[in-house]
């Protein structure tokens, strides 16, 4: 297997605080890697650096052989990286269907003729004229939306035409994942997909993510619910205070003294809790 993502000595400073200390991370094609760590450990900052929402002060990030550090997020997305956000960022005033369709944006072909310099104008013309090829593309994507929604059982399918702001918190998280899947990502970054979910919903999400893994989806996951991490991950990285404190198979990392201490600050208590 080849490395899909490779981070070398990636660093991010905010004023005097080093949010991400020089960190290395590699992810192979088809692998499921989880990042765990207490709040403020720098996990989401690392995600932002990888997805282009923030620019590292130092280090290199290579996606499929291309250096992407400092690239605009839309360009990284077009390379096949999709992400969800820690606090959920659905398009609140749009229907569930439109939310998912936005995810497929970079796969639009017929409506975006490749004309150097005049691409935007041609796209506007295509949108207004709507020739058969464009209509067919839109219909195919709409069909795909149904398939993606079906992954979530009957959670999203009956609500496809409802505005996202009317959904429950858990459903909004599902919409976000569905939207990310519509990108057909080579690499999927999930930032706490089960935050705010109850046990049943968490179990359901776990089986959905497990399903993605089973079909070969490469996934980088941030998650606090260790149970889910243990069951799904091929490999786990633990972070604390901006630095990587442990890396390896799930159970090795779980029992690492550094991890236990980081989580609860006291070894004995940590063991009791874990």
């Amino acid at each position, binding site marked *: 297997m080849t490395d899909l993502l490779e981070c070398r000595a990636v660093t991010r400073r905010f004023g005097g605080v080093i949010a991400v200390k020089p960190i290395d991370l590699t992810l192979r094609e088809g692998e499921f890697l989880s990042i765990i760590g207490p709040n403020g450990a720098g996990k989401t900052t690392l995600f932002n650096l990888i997805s*282009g929402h923030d620019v590292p002060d130092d280090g290199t990030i290579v996606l499929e052989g291309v250096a992407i550090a400092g690239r605009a997020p839309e360009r990284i997305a077009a390379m096949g990286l999709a992400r969800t956000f820690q606090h959920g960022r659905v398009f609140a005033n749009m229907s569930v269907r*439109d939310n998912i369709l936005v995810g497929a944006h970079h796969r639009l072909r017929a409506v975006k003729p490749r004309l150097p310099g005049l691409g935007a104008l041609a796209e506007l013309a295509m949108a207004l004229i709507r020739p058969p090829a464009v209509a067919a593309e839109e219909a195919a994507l709409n069909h795909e939306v149904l398939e993606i929604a079906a992954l979530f059982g009957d959670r999203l399918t009956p609500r496809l035409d409802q505005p996202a702001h009317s959904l429950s918190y858990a459903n909004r998280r599902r919409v976000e994942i569905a939207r990310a899947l519509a990108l057909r990502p080579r690499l999927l970054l999930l930032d706490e997909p089960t935050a705010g979910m109850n046990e049943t919903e968490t179990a359901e999400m776990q089986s959905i993510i497990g399903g993605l893994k089973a079909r070969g989806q490469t996934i980088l996951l941030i998650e606090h619910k260790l149970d889910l991490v243990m069951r799904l991950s091929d490999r786990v990285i633990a972070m604390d205070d901006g630095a990587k404190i442990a890396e390896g198979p799930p159970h090795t990392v779980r029992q690492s003294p550094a991890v236990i201490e980081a989580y609860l600050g006291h070894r004995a208590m940590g063991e009791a809790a874990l």
Partner: protein
Amino acid sequence: MGSWLDYTINGLIIGNIYALVAVGLALIFGVSNLINFAQGSVYAVGAYIGWTCFTYLHTPLAVTALIVVVACAGLGVAIERIGLRPLAGAARIAPLLATIGISLVLDQLLQIVFTPDPRALTSPLPNWRISVGGGTIGALDLLIAATGIVSAAVLYGFLRFTKLGWAVRATAQDRDAARQMGVNTDAVNMTVFAIASALGGLSGLLVGMYFNHIDPAMGFQATLKGVVAQVIGGMGNVPGAIFGSLLLGLTESYGVAIFGSSYRNLFSFALLLLILVLRPNGLFASARSTPPEPMTGSFVTPNRPVRVPRWAIVAAVVIAAAVPLIPAIPYVLQVLTNAWLFAMLAISLTLVAGTLGQISLGHASLLLIGAYASALFALDSHWPVWASIPAAGIVTALLGTALIAPSFRLRSHYVSIATLGIGEIVGLVILNWESLTRGPMGVTNIPPLQVGNIELDNPRAAYWITLGILVLLAMMQTRLLRSHLGRIFRAIRDDDVAARAHGISLGRYKAIAFAFGGFAAGISGGIAAHQYSYINNETFTSTVSISALTMVILGGMGNVLGAILGAVALTALPEMFRGTAEYRMLIYGVALLLLVRFRPQGILGTT
């Protein structure tokens, strides 16, 4: 050298005047993240209260100043109570729109009470002057400088050493946390508005005395300058506002020295755009820091838009088309033709402000570009009118998009400020580019609407043409909104960070929206030019931009039918109260206030 010293001193004095307004704006922004567009109006009210005191009560300056300070502080409290507090849970842009409404109301009331004519506000100060270099400094200059320094010092002491000052600073940093700690944030807001308004009113009095001239329109210019100064120094930064004001004053003064006085404002707005593009967080912010708050700028209230059945739309168009068949109502035709022209502007604005979420406060400048383009194509290039109007649409689309493009990375309030600045710049360039635009003379003898040899210079023909073009543009926009572009525009509006994460390039799609909107507005301006037969740089002012925004909010942001409905309602309704032309803007102001407060989704709902 002597004259440079003069220009420097003059620049510092003017800058100091701006500072009095800018500090008030900065205080309010610092505490409530709000650009108070009514600040300039309070300043104008202060000037008029001073004038009234001098003229009728013959009070000495100290007493007059005290009356102004107390009255304006009261006005500030009222603004906070009406414009801000009821909107606590509303969209972030809502209070800003409310202050625009308040400012319209105040400016218009001044105009109604005191007439639009300028008045002299003679300084009662002794008339001695000290020579400095080649120029002089008078008692009033010193008083203005002293007021600036003393109020800055008092403000600093208040914020630093008093309990209420601490509360203000705490509220500025984190309103919710401050409230948790028992700070009465409403009281803090009220205090801040009182202080800021008192400062604003006092500066209006001083500036009126300085120029020996006051008029009801002085408020809007003051707000603009105060906002520019604030952007230079960083929004909400009080020392930054003072520094920004001085820098603005100096820039203008030197600019006037080199290019002449009609370039004064052009320099301020060019400086504004330069800062917005290069350092949107002001000169004192570090280059890489993110904006102070991830503000979402859209004014979209979750709601279910009203579904208007197709037959109703068809019926409405048929009825509208049949109006000219009713005999002998040329006046109604004229009003409605004007309404259709406004509707074109409104659908353009509802696309940009509603669907794309970029609240433009300078949309009237697109009308100006379109009007000038079509008029000049017809007059100078001898193009037929049927060709010059679509060409004007294209020119407006290209030019409008090119002007706004450097500001595409700005968000929320900053977009509104940038569009406001661009709007002013367009008018000023038209005023100063005499070789192309004929300058302040305006363009006369613009040929009427005609196709081939058929003159369409009668009210009926003009009505049908305008209505036909509007229907066409509205249908195109509706089709656009149903395409993937409509989806992308809304995604950018709702969350541009998430949109980018899914591969949407903001620049490209903002450009498409502005170009499409610019086309419709340019057509509207083009038709208007041929109907009016005379245009100048003040044919479409910022007032028109605000009217259009009110129409769009009335109809429902992003709603094409709503925009047309809003345009008809706000163009036709004021006509029903005949002889009350001066009340038109007052009606707009009140309508804006009521809408933002009670029905932010408008009549037909946002989409």
